[in-house]
């Protein structure tokens, strides 16, 4: 190894570390701020490290916005929607990958094309549609339109296409029904894609803001944590509540990040293999 080579490596490492620190800074700042006392939050110039970690903001935030209940609502919304997306995507992906039928490519384009449609475009009629069937203000109203998803169908078709037909035929010879084949033969064969879609769907549904805000109509009992965070901002305005807001934000961030740590590998692999064939 030459000297210029090791210098180059040191510089590269320094650059990578610097960028990682910059990228992580807002999240680290959020957690640190949630542990500061109100006085520390108001200091000019800002203090970076709380003298002693102060967890009172976390208990206070639970009282102010009912954080526990909001987290529960978020968990229900994200879990049910994710389960729905997994089931509908597996079944539709299987049909598009393994069945030949008339109009297949048109139907596929129509369904998957909705991936590129910003939700705001359909928000107004959808809001009315949900209130006409009487689900305004309810968790059902939040979840119902999100039980199927274009990206999920697309991803599953990509992966199921690679499952060998012999495997399916063997199961058919054994007398398995098509539904059974989907869930007990195909699903295990595409487990990494299922892991990726679980993470994608759960994080998306946990984080989504525009639709619940519109459909829940101020019914705060059913608010997911992201909406309750918004309420926190108008509570006791001013720097006094910085710690509170940061504690609430920390709570909201934990579940998606936690899931990400576990499923990261599948998620990155799925992005790499699903979309961009250069």
């Amino acid at each position, binding site marked *: 190894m030459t000297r210029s080579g090791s210098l180059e490596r040191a510089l590269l*490492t320094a650059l990578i570390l610097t960028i990682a620190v910059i990228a992580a800074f807002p999240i680290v700042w959020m957690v640190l701020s949630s542990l500061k006392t109100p006085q520390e939050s108001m200091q000019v110039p800002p203090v970076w490290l709380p003298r002693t970690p102060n967890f009172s903001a976390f208990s206070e935030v639970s009282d102010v916005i009912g954080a526990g209940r909001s987290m529960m609502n978020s968990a229900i919304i994200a879990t049910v929607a994710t389960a729905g997306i997994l089931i509908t995507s597996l079944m539709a992906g299987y049909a598009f990958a393994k069945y030949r039928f008339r109009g297949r490519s048109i139907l596929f384009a129509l369904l998957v094309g909705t991936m590129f449609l910003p939700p705001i475009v359909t928000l107004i009629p959808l809001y*009315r*549609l949900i209130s006409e069937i009487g689900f305004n203000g309810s968790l059902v109203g939040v979840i119902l339109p999100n039980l199927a998803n274009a990206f999920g169908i697309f991803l599953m078709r990509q992966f199921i296409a690679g499952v060998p037909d012999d495997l399916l035929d063997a199961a058919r010879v054994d007398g398995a029904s*098509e539904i059974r084949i989907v869930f007990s033969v195909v699903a295990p064969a595409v487990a990494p894609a299922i892991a990726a879609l679980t993470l994608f769907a759960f994080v998306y549904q946990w984080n989504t*803001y525009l639709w619940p805000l519109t459909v829940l109509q101020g019914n705060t009992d059913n608010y997911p944590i992201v909406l309750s965070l918004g309420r926190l901002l108008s509570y006791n305005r001013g720097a006094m509540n910085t710690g509170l807001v940061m504690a609430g934000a920390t709570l909201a961030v934990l579940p998606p990040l936690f899931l990400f740590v576990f499923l990261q590998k599948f998620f990155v692999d799925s992005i790499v293999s699903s979309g*961009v064939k250069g």
Partner: protein
Amino acid sequence: MRAARTFNLSIMLGPATALIGVFILVPMVLTVWLSFHEWSSQTPFSSARFVGLRNYQDLFGPISVGRDFRRAFFNTAIYTCVSVLALLPLSVMLGLLVHQKRAAGGQMLRTVLFATYMVPMIAVALVWSKLYSPSEGPINQILGWFGLGPQPWLSSPSTALYALVILNVWQQVGYFTVLAIAGLTQIPKTLHEAARIDGANPVQSFFGVTLPLLRRTLLFSAVIAVINAVQVFEPVALITQGGPAGSTNVLTYHIRRVGIERAQGGMGSAMAVMLMLSLIVAIFAIFAMNRKAEEQ
């Protein structure tokens, strides 16, 4: 046998098709239909009154409805362009850093960058609003260390929209970096070796080999980045409320305010149709630019 096949097919496709049909495709058609009507979103669809092109005339007309809409449209266009122009080069640069094998830390960087993409936008908005805080925020403090004066960030009409762009780029860059890495891994190593043997330095090799072969990845990234950027909502709804002086009033926020909060469903739908059409035009323009680059 045939009947059984048809039965299986409808079982498999039924749930997804029905859900996407009823909750996305039907509302899409309704949006277009409503845009030609005067309709309060608090009343049934049947009470919509046909007004022809009047909503569209208002949007392009000299009245305040049109002025507000055009301002929101313009703001969204700036926000989208600057976001895309920042995200694409950044994602390629970071992708190269993660992809290179000479120094350690690449995988760690990828994890950190991608973790930011998992954070709810609402939390991102809250945290950054504190980071940007003129006196208690660390950003101006850090600028001070380098001898730079404090910036107004979200509190000045000339900087607020760009402050939101920075926040957007911070949140999304990890996703586009992963796309860039995916593109980079598909470039055969032999091409770079061939370029090196021909006497190309790393910079020439990047512009001669890497960038042309990344074109399809960048095309996909650009389309996704545009679609994501027009959806900006949380930081505006929560922190700036479209201000100061209308400088961060963006389309998603504006459409929701008109169509849901003010219940002007017809007018809001006309705005949504304009957004959709502009998006289609923008995506076509990206493809056209790509074709031009390919011809050269």
